[in-house]
């Protein structure tokens, strides 16, 4: 489809879309982001994965983290364009550490900020109504760097039929993946979130970050509440054709191998799939 139809699109600006690492679980989100960026007047060049790691996961080895930061800043410098970041970890690590140890030669914008500043171009693209009362899953962190807890609801409210309701719960931390080693905190967050959503009459939970979507989609798989990432709702309203395969696999882990298909499983290797992928798909929240 021509997603630019109806949008007030000016001449394209080439940008580097730095999507990060773990969003690679969600190809639909990456592809939708690219379509949305194109539709509002950008020419995105996507980069990510381990070769573009920011190094934030290497707190245990700052020599390695420093090397990763130098390599990635150098690669992004060589692109010569503004960088639009998807991942909150990458974005904050760039500001906190990477640019302090390396010469950053590019401007940088977080995707939510970019979309928010291009609301007038985005609004006409949101054609398909989605009758849905949603609550934003939000954290206290990162919001000081980019006010996502204000901006994302304002973006969601542009989708015809979407009503954003305030649940009154803001989780600690800056995104859910940090809670992986803190099971009690994770359990509390899941349960507080479900209670808040039910109390405010939300029909669905919407996450800003993919790390939160990956964690919260377990609530969907457990039948507690439907869960979406905000980009997925934009994509649906714009009529973009991407399917959320991760959620489908998560909802039916025993059938996931069949859904994925033998060819794709073979690319990963059946042993690795069963040892390192399937357990994640089977994981469910501990609801009280």
């Amino acid at each position, binding site marked *: 489809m021509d997603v630019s139809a109806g949008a007030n699109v000016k001449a394209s600006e080439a940008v580097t879309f730095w999507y990060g*690492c*773990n969003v*690679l*679980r*969600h*190809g639909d989100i*990456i592809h939708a982001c690219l379509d949305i960026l194109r539709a509002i007047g950008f020419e995105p060049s*996507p*980069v*990510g*994965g*381990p*070769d*573009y*790691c920011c190094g934030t*996961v*290497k*707190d*245990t080895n*700052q*020599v390695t*983290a*420093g*090397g990763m*930061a*130098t390599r990635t800043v150098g690669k992004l410098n060589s692109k010569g364009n503004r960088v639009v970041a998807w991942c909150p970890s990458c974005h*904050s690590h760039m500001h*906190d*550490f*990477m640019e*302090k*140890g*390396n010469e950053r030669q590019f401007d940088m914008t977080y995707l939510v900020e970019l979309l928010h500043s291009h609301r007038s171009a985005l609004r006409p693209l949101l054609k398909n109504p989605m009758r849905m009362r949603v609550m934003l899953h939000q*954290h*206290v*962190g*990162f*919001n*000081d760097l980019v006010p996502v807890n204000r901006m994302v609801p304002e973006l969601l409210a542009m989708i015809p039929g979407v009503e954003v309701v305030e649940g009154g719960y803001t989780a*600690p*931390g*800056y995104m859910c993946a*940090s*809670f992986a*080693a*803190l099971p*009690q*905190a994770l359990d509390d967050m899941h349960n507080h979130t479900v209670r808040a959503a039910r109390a405010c009459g939300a029909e669905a939970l919407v996450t800003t970050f993919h790390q939160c979507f990956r964690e919260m989609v377990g609530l969907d798989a457990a039948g507690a509440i439907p869960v979406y990432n905000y980009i997925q709702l934009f994509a649906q309203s714009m009529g973009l054709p991407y399917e959320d*395969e*991760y959620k489908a696999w998560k909802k039916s882990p025993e059938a996931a191998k069949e859904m*994925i298909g033998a060819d*794709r499983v073979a*690319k*990963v290797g059946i042993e*690795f*799939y069963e*040892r*390192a*992928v399937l357990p*994640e798909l089977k994981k469910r929240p501990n609801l009280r």
Partner: protein
Amino acid sequence: MSGKPLIGQRLKAFQESEVERILGACTQCGKCHEVCPMAQYSKTPSQDSRSTVGGVLAVLRGEKGSPEALGWIGVCTRSGVCVPACPENVDPKMMMRLARMTALGGRGLPKQIETKEDRDYFDRVRAFAKLQLTDDELKEWM
């Protein structure tokens, strides 16, 4: 000698200067610990915020941290609530991040807290990429 700075040297110098700044600025008032929404999840919870912060500063100095300080460092998830609570503009979020790196042995000092290393982390990222992207996208985007 090429004169080219070693990779990571500037980052190391930045971290060292931040440690010095934090050690010089923090008055151990304990406000950062008092407002922390994660402190309740520490394995060694503390009612004495001033002492707990003192233990964090000890870690930054390369000394052994108290169990309460190490417990708090272990549960920091970068909420950032501590930043506006600090009357001295120390940036306690940075303080805790550097203390975590130090306590994990990441800055070359003895390890004081354990973390579960996910040996499959990057391979899992690559695996999902193979499940979600086309061969051309894998080649051009990563």
